[in-house]
């Protein structure tokens, strides 16, 4: 049995989520924005697993597994988009990706 209280794990999860959120909105580089998105997903997973440990059910573990698979899919598509963006613009700067602006 772990001696660390549940709130510590939740605070860690919130910190990770917030760091990722700040990264998503401050970085102009699309790759770093994607990496920060991964941080946010990891924060959510930590909260999931902390609650799973305190409740003792396997469903949250399964949910985390699904989140991981979707995150991997999102990274594959996101990086394909970044490569395509780079091919068009010769840069992955999100501020320069204004082609679809009306």
């Amino acid at each position, binding site marked *: 049995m*772990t*001696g660390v*209280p549940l*709130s510590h794990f939740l605070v860690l999860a919130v910190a990770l989520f917030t760091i990722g959120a*700040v*990264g998503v*909105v401050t970085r102009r*580089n699309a790759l770093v924005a994607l990496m920060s998105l991964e941080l946010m997903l990891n924060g959510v997973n*930590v909260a999931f*697993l902390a609650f799973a440990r305190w409740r003792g059910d396997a469903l949250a573990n399964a949910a985390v597994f699904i989140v991981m698979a979707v995150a991997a899919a999102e990274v594959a598509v996101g990086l394909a988009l970044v490569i395509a963006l780079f091919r068009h613009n010769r840069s992955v700067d999100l501020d320069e990706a204004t082609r679809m602006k009306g």
Partner: protein
Amino acid sequence: MMDALTLKDALFWAFAFLTVGFGLMVTFHRSLVHAALGLMGTLLSVACIYGLLDADFVAVTQIIVYVGGVLILFLFGVFLTRRIDDIEVSNLSVNWMVAVPAGLVLLAVILYAVISSPLPMAPVDATGPTVEGIGNEFLSRYLLPFEVLSVILLAVLVGALMMARRELKPEERD
């Protein structure tokens, strides 16, 4: 018994600080390669946190999928897209004077929610390996999400190939 408890406490604090520190490196370091390395550190530390939470299967999956797959994809992305001569171009943070206070507000709001909600004090007794439980969930009640997940992965496989491939010029087409 007390020694075991304090050891777990120490491990938790060590991995928590590593996680947050590497996370800050991802978000605030100017070099793309350093950000990717910070991401690796974060993912490994989070895997250790999973281990502390007795989630053995998820911890191993985290290392295989994230560190072994996603991170390599990121490194490929970094090396495929950056220009060699200006390593730190287009990685400057903008509008951080707004974003960091907004992030702090977000942190405060969620922390308030965590603090003010009634949390269970003690975890349930250790239940042993989690693989069996996960397998039971996926192959009985949650079979449909599991199968939808495989369809998503197939769609992503095809879609990522479609988007990332070089467009052929008309004379190159057969």
